[in-house]
């Protein structure tokens, strides 16, 4: 359902202007949950599948009916990149920084074997700052991570990933050979 009560959110984050448009109802709702440090995704009212990223209809059955549903922010790294050459100037002090593609435990392998809710984010410290090199060097495919949030402004926080200290980690996660 469209609302006319949203306000466009504009904020600076690491030198970039992030903007959540007032008409972008889905992203407004998504980031409002994130701002409350809750991870909610859209669950289809018709087929029951949860989707990511934010979308306006179901990626499997095309239904437009959905309910924002709390989802556990835990999973394992499916793949990643480690950026040495930052494009955004404000990222340069943090290189190498890591972009993670994380398989959530929730709905992994559904509805077909190779599908998963693969949620993007940087590797960050538990308080949401881009992770230092020694943390980056310890993470690879298979690493267990948990979600934390980087607060940006009212109504806007970014979901991020940090090493899950309580999880059993793989002996040596797969990393690009040095």
């Amino acid at each position, binding site marked *: 359902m469209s609302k006319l009560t949203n306000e466009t959110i*504009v904020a600076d984050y690491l030198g*970039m202007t992030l903007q959540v448009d007032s008409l972008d109802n889905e*992203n407004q709702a998504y980031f409002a949950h994130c701002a409350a440090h809750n991870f909610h995704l859209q669950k289809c009212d018709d087929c029951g599948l949860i989707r990511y990223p934010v979308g306006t209809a179901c*990626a499997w059955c095309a239904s437009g009916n959905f309910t924002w549903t709390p989802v556990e922010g835990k999973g394992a790294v499916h*793949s*990643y990149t480690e950026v040495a050459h*930052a*494009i955004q100037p404000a990222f340069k002090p943090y290189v190498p920084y890591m972009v993670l593609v994380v398989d959530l435990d929730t709905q992994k392998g559904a509805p077909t074997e190779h599908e998963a809710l693969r949620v*993007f984010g940087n590797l960050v410290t538990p308080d949401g700052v881009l992770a230092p090199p020694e943390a980056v060097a310890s993470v690879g495919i298979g690493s267990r991570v948990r979600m934390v949030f980087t607060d940006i402004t009212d109504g806007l926080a970014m979901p991020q990933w940090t090493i899950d200290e309580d999880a059993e980690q793989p002996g040596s996660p797969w990393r*690009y050979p040095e």
Partner: protein
Amino acid sequence: MAQIDQLDPELGASLREKYAIVGVGETEYVRGSGTTTRAMAVRAVRNAMADAGLEPGQVDGMLSYSGMDSTLSTFVSSDLGIRLNFYMDVLGGGSSTEALIGIAMGVIEAGMCETVAIFRSMNGHSQTRVGGTGARAVAPVVSEFLHQRSYGWQSPGQLFAPSFLRHMYDYGTTPEQVAHVKVAHSHHASNNPKALYNNRVTVDDVVGSRMICKPLHLLDCCVETDNATAIIVTSAARAKDCRQVPALIRGVVGRVSKPRADLHYETGPISTVAGHYAAPRLWRNADVGPEDIDVTGSYDAFTFTTMLQLEDYGFCKKGEGGDYVSNGTIFLGGKRPNNTSGGHLCEGYTHGVSMVVENVRQLRHEADDSCPIGPDGKRQHTYDYSEGGCRQVKDAELSANLGWATPGTGSALVMRRGA
């Protein structure tokens, strides 16, 4: 109604070799064109018309693509005295070329026009950087991009890299294997006087160059240049009156996508790319298979894109792309050379048109290398592929172009040497 994936083997034959590419042209590959995308596009289309032997009154269709960084067909046609019966300027990057060739065939088939010029013109170094620096880096991050750019994840290399790394994880592909793509293309470029980078490099040069984002070193990435390229499509019947040996279009597929093409990572395997979905339709339309192809043009935005597509279009078994690109096959003198111009890694960057241009010249047996031109005006190819020498593939009859937009979207084209 039958599912779309159940391909009817009979369909696809009706337009086979009914259309052809009859003219190709470009501007020089430079960093700093000192002119507009309009001026470059006009030169490239004019060169393609001269190549085909066509007058302004013999071209009546125009197609172009851009990322809103270029001129439009109305300006280019007006500068060239062309009155258009059809034109469209579409949004698109890599893999638009093959798709627009298919569209050109369709509009001619529909009687909407007779002959279509397709161009891409870009000041990709001096105005709008494809790598995302400059103007694109300061644009506000909105809507879908809040889930990407906010994470410092925005350049093509950064966005594709998780697929590349996952291929290494899934199949044991090594950086050294994939580096051979750059090595091969640099050898080819050394025999291409047009190439921006014409120095030959080694595997050590590639894996020893500075890391951009894992697994991409600097030399795994294509160059940014200012350039325009053009090709002209018409019917095989009209092609008989043109100057050159026509490159007959046997089959084309355009912008075939994986499920969830928005970013493709939600549907695995993420080490599989759009070519996996495009291949059955391409080979059905062309009625040949990968084993029949003499020369390939697998899009090299990155070394990995060339490898992934060759694999998913069936030039080798799934997972064996690393071996395929490093065992000599893709080098001039090998069984099936790839990107004989040097491609985007070495010749210059033009969002894919150049790779079709090169294969058209290969099929004419007119690769514009340094071999001497005989009294008949044709190049006397030596087939000596040493540095500075020949880059013509001997007796090239069939080519395949594999265009890349993203891991999730691609296009492809099979051409045969006409009479």
